[in-house]
């Protein structure tokens, strides 16, 4: 594979046949659809459905699945590295590392991962861009199954070029924006569409900010903060201690001691 790969979905070509969904379910061995509480629509993503075709008004169809972000929030959130961004592009999951904290479900900007809530050994479930199939040199199951070539696979750079070419060739057919080109720092699953797909994200609008950067801005302060707080505390204790000693010595030299150590500490009340 040359460079990170991705998927380009052209919603104007999708006829809503769900061949991709059927192929996805088969390739991942997901079995019959089973819904969990909080999931009202039979056709929503679930632990038994990694991809689904959403219907928009005016008979538009949108294949919803993991976006395989270029800078994935789930990967950044996972404290044991169970979520991993592969060099090829797909974001994959390792159940042997997972603790089951569900921070990935909380963090995902597109609300994609699902959990096996009633399982004895629950796991996070989501699309892996058929990573195992890719390694065998096959296409992702959804891409292979699409009868209309609405879903195509290739290096992300070439897909982007193709997306822009389609928009330029038929400006009336598409919105002038490749969904996923810049959103949350870019996603490996891209869309061209004649209707806004902003509803796919919690943000509900374009946001080029990669989410892991928000965390890192705070997290990078941790080592210096540890040293500064530690040093500060040691320093304050030393300074106050010294003042107390001096005060005690002066007290011993001249007037009678007032309250002993208990009155010590000219640091005043804490946190003043």
């Amino acid at each position: 594979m040359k460079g990170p790969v991705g998927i380009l979905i052209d919603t104007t070509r999708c006829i809503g046949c769900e061949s991709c969904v059927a192929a996805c379910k088969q390739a991942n061995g997901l079995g019959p659809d089973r819904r969990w509480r909080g999931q009202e629509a039979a056709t929503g993503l679930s632990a038994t459905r990694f991809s689904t075709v959403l219907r928009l008004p005016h008979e538009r169809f949108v294949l919803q699945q993991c976006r395989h972000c270029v800078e994935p929030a789930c990967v950044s959130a996972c404290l044991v590295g169970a979520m991993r961004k592969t060099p090829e592009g797909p974001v994959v999951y390792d159940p042997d590392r997972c603790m089951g904290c569900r921070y990935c479900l909380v963090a995902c900007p597109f609300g994609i991962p699902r959990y096996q809530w009633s399982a004895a050994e629950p796991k996070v479930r989501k699309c892996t861009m058929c990573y195992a199939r890719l390694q065998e040199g096959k296409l992702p199951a959804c891409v292979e199954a699409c009868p209309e070539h609405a879903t195509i696979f290739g290096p992300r750079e070439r897909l982007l070029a193709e997306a822009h070419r389609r928009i330029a060739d038929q400006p009336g057919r598409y919105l002038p924006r490749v969904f996923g080109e810049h959103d949350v720092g870019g996603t490996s699953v891209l869309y061209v569409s004649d209707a806004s797909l902003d509803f796919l994200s919690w943000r509900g609008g374009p946001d080029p900010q990669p989410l892991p950067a928000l965390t890192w801005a705070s997290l990078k302060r941790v080592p210096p903060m540890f040293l500064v707080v530690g040093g500060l505390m040691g320093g304050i204790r030393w300074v106050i201690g010294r003042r107390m000693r001096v005060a005690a010595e002066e007290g011993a030299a001249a007037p009678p001691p007032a309250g002993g150590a208990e009155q010590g500490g000219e640091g005043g009340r804490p946190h003043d």
Partner: protein
Amino acid sequence: MTDRLARLKTVLWALIGVLTPITVLRFADGLGTVTNLSDAAPWGLWVAFDVMAGVALAAGGFVVAATVYIFRLERYRGFVRPAVLTALLGYILVAVGLLYDLGLPWHIWHPIIYPQPHSVLFEVAACVMLYLTVLILEFAPVVLEHPLFDRALFRGAYRWLRKATIPLVIVGIALSSLHQSSLGSLFLITPARLNPLWYSPDIWILYLVSAVALGLMMVLLESVLAGVFYGHRVETRLLTGLGEAAAVVLALYAGFRVWDLGQRDQLGLVTDGSWQSWLFIGELSVSAVIPAALMLFRRVRASVAGLATAASLTVFGMILNRLDACIVVFQRPAGAGYFPSWMEIAVSLGLVAAGVLAFLFAVEHLAVYEGVGAAAPREAPGVAPVAPADAGGVRGLLPLRLTAARRYSMAALGAAALTVVFVPLSGPRPRPTPVQRPRTQHGVVRGAAGSPSHRLVLADAAPPRPAGDSAPVPLLLLAGHRDRMAVLFDHEAHVRRTGGDASCALCHHLDLPLDRASACADCHRDVFDSTATFVHGTHVAALGGDSGCAHCHAPGVAKTYATAAACTDCHRTPAVAHPVIAAPAARWRSAPGYEAAMHGLCVECHEREAREHPGEYPVAMTRCAWCHDVDRGPELRRLLPRVAPGGQGGLAAGTR
């Protein structure tokens, strides 16, 4: 022991009793059974209260340690031991609470071997683990003072630990300030989901500052409660000091929170009248503004009751703050709610009860509070009969004559027994989505068969009988998947065209046992997935039980599908239930998914007819839209079972 204390302990033991069966259920049957969690609400009460609020409530340990050891305000030394004990127990409870909440609790140690330092949660986990170790070392001397440990080895450890106190305290403060703030940083990655009144790029400052104030107020409240239950008295002056310090921090907290909103131009949200704005105002008032304002009054400052009131408000308000951010104002898909199940609440309460009981045990057997327990002048530790001095006014659930141990055992066992009655034996399982059987609708046929304008129209949707419409006919609504591309199917017209009654077998290839004209959905039960249709048990019963094996399986050969006799060996004469098996042999034992079955039947035939009778049938008959009339989609979906507003999928605005 006072009557009051005995009652408190009885209640606490009862809560432990409630906790026990739920614990068994949680680990035997999974998260889904005891919680109301879902993909829409992946974090619930256990994360919000047991972890988020739990860590903040335990902040007193590092705040008081800093006060006494760093700022050297020796007069507060009496608060150090209870505060460190609270912190120690609090963090143990956080760890235990996590064991309940994690999906794979036996992987709880994985952060040690699979560290992922870009995760805020890893930072929290690492700090909590280290700080728990520090707390154990900080509190160990108190345990080692017990006569039980009066040996040379322990005396050495004791001396060493006492010497290490200052470094431990400093490391503890640094670790605490890091993870207290990082609990807030957990939300940095969800800028779109957390309500802007709670979200802030500087949320970590808010979490740290609020934890400091909360820690002080908790220590104050505990001290007052120790007075109520153990007659422990501290100078009110010291409590006032704690309260005043907390008030200053609370004022800083409230001020920073409002300033931060203003600086991000979000102040308008505070007064926009939405329920979130009222929640924000209420939460900030109860947690910070009112307690801080109360401390302005000398009467409140100087009275234990006043101080306790202010502290209680802060404790309540800050717990609410953590619940708000985690649950209440954290965006969910439209229509998806979350409220903790009674078992989630019982687990949280039970863990708190366990913590309080451990605290009381330590207070009674170790030198935690001056003048109480091991620090008391006399009074031997041990189980004393709970015979209060004022036995005349005894009221309680159980007779106080019983020894303490017996009384508490009865409370716990009784509560456990009662709980067992109420807990479900097993929880909900994910619901399958069955294929819908066709339903009869009344419609009309518009346009001549085979003409491009030919279509089926629902009767109630049609204008009153335009010319060319047929008389109303029954039409089958093939809805398969509830909200997918439903199809109107004129069954009668197909029967007429394909040869009357003799043509049934063109489509209807197999019936269920003892059934005629079984619906397609009876075997093709899932839209996508093929379903096993061979029922071994039915055959065993029909062929004479255990003696019937030889009908299909040869002796001495492993009994599998592959080695069994062919189905057509029997299913070829009308003497058996299902004589007709039209499908290829490879498909006998399983039925393809509904969609594949329908497409297989309809498309194949439409294509053949259009090919072989081009004059009679239009080519359009082979296209999707011939049956899946896209213009008619909304009209048909109206007839299908309702789905919730979120049914379109996506993440339509939830709590914002």
